[in-house]
């Protein structure tokens, strides 16, 4: 196994074209496979998942529920083992040296890990003790984190009485108590009110800007990945189907989306014929009164589109031009929309 790990290390450590800056891959997953259950009941959660997250960045695994994101996090955080493949965190193999990996990572898992029968401060204290912290240093660290996450007033209250947002903030504070290099946040904002979620985004963004912290974020909120992550890997059915910066992923779709609302349902062929001569307009599709197309430059294409439709006597109610969203990206790579994937996965679970 040693040669394999060396190879991974080398490929993960790149020399930037700008100079001799060495960028390390802090999280590396290579061909992870994991199947739960046996024989006919077996469910394959991961089917060869690979990605690499660089030091000091936020990397997002984006996908619907059941895509395998949490399984990947469980393997990378040493909670469970892969059937196949290899995972390195900070250059250390998670299967061979789980204890070493555990000291370098902080984990906020899906749901919560708060002991609701203890106070916020007691939760933090125990967590710190498990990492060998003690005495004044531990007490100061606990107070600092309670302060930072707005829990100072509730610090000595039993966590059972905390709101969902407070528990989540305590979760994150606990994951940070030993100042880990790598932070795993598994669906950190699922189940939170929109307001609380926005607050959580600020906290996560602040974490990421801290020097040298690498954050792996899993989410099924497109806008969350878009907003927080430097790089995004789109996960579908246990595999990474696309990867890049949010901008790269969106620009691969070449052009903007043009949405036209028609006054009356139109025939697909007629509309397509009308728009065919316009340069730079592609992928025209009509569904009832909704017309969808893609254009190199949406703003410039709109007048010609309107003209062409008017010439055929097709009345237009409204036009909207949008930069492609990650939803569009997902549709392109997974072959289904995010919503479809979500509902399919929930059905599978039932």
């Amino acid at each position: 196994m040693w040669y394999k790990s060396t190879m991974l290390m080398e490929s993960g450590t790149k020399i930037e074209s700008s100079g001799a800056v060495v960028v390390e891959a802090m999280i590396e997953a290579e061909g992870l496979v994991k199947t739960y259950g046996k024989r006919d009941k077996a469910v394959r959660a991961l089917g060869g998942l690979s990605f690499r997250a660089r030091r000091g960045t936020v990397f997002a695994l984006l996908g619907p529920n059941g895509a395998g994101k949490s399984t990947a996090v469980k393997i990378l955080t040493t909670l469970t083992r892969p059937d196949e493949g290899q995972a390195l965190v900070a250059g250390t193999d998670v299967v061979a040296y789980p204890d070493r990996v555990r000291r370098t990572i902080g984990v906020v898992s899906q749901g919560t890990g708060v002991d609701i029968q203890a106070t916020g401060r007691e939760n933090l204290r125990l967590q710190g003790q498990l990492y060998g912290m003690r005495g004044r240093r531990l007490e100061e660290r606990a107070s600092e984190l309670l302060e930072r996450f707005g829990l100072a007033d509730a610090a000595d209250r039993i966590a059972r009485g905390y709101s969902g947002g407070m528990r989540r903030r305590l979760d994150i504070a606990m994951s940070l108590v030993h100042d880990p290099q790598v932070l795993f946040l598994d669906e950190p904002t699922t189940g939170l009110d929109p307001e609380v979620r926005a607050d959580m985004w600020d906290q996560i963004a602040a974490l990421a800007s801290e020097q040298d912290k690498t954050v792996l974020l899993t989410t099924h909120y497109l806008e969350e990945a878009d907003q927080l992550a430097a790089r995004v890997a789109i996960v579908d059915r246990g595999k990474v189907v696309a990867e890049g910066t949010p901008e790269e992923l969106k620009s691969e779709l070449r052009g903007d989306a043009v949405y036209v609302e028609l006054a009356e349902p139109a025939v697909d062929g007629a509309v397509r014929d009308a728009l065919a001569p316009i340069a730079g307009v592609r992928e025209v599709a009509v569904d009832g009164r909704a017309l969808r197309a893609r254009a190199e430059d949406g703003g410039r294409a709109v007048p010609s589109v309107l003209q062409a439709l008017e010439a055929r006597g097709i009345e237009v109610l409204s036009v909207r031009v949008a930069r492609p969203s990650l939803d569009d990206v997902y549709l392109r790579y997974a072959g289904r929309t995010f919503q479809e994937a979500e509902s399919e996965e929930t059905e599978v679970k039932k």
Partner: protein
Amino acid sequence: MTVVRHSYFMTIRHVRELLRQPWWIAVTLVQPVIWLLLFGALFKNVVNIPGFNSTNYIEFLAPGVIVMTALFASGWGGMPLIDDIERGVTDRFLVSPVKRTALISGRLVHSSLTIAIQSVIIVVLALIDGAAFAGGFGGVVVMIAVAILLGASFGALSNGLALLARREETLIAIMNFVLLPLTFLSSAFMQQNLIPTWMQHVADFNPVNWAVVAGRSAVSANPDWGLIASRAGFLVALLLVCLAFATRAFRTYQRSV
């Protein structure tokens, strides 16, 4: 010794819960007190059966009730662990450098403390109700100690099963199937040579009976120290096996999450 330190941290966690709701000890005592006082009164005349060696049924019954209390409290010991698993607390510990053994031993130390407190209360009640415990203070300490040994074994077993089953219903089913039969297949309520022969044979291999026999002998006027030592030895061996099982159960658990 990291294991000892981690066990201490975990013990603090559980004892703190106990201190925050001390009335819980009173709740868990309701059943044993009913056994001791009502069952004791109901079968008071058992001592008149020819061949029965004791003259006071309460004194005879008390070691049985103490062992039974330890057994039941520990048998359900896996339930809070299932709570922890469902709340994600266990997973959080498992991705930290905590020693797996400490996750079990912290719970066992806590339940041992509870058993000790409950046993003392039962002893006091038995004394008030007329028991003499000729074995004296030392004998009572030994009796409580063997009850704790049995309790720790079943506590470890219950925690291991909790990790494998991960469902309260399953644990409840298994323990219902095990706890009461083990209690009745012992000399907790009746002198061993007066119960049916097949039961006497089963009782010889029943850990609950080991604890009852050793405890009862320890508080009697003439303790049989050879017998006490051998039964305590069996219980220590059982405890080690159950601890190994519980620690290994973490591996199986981690494979399946």
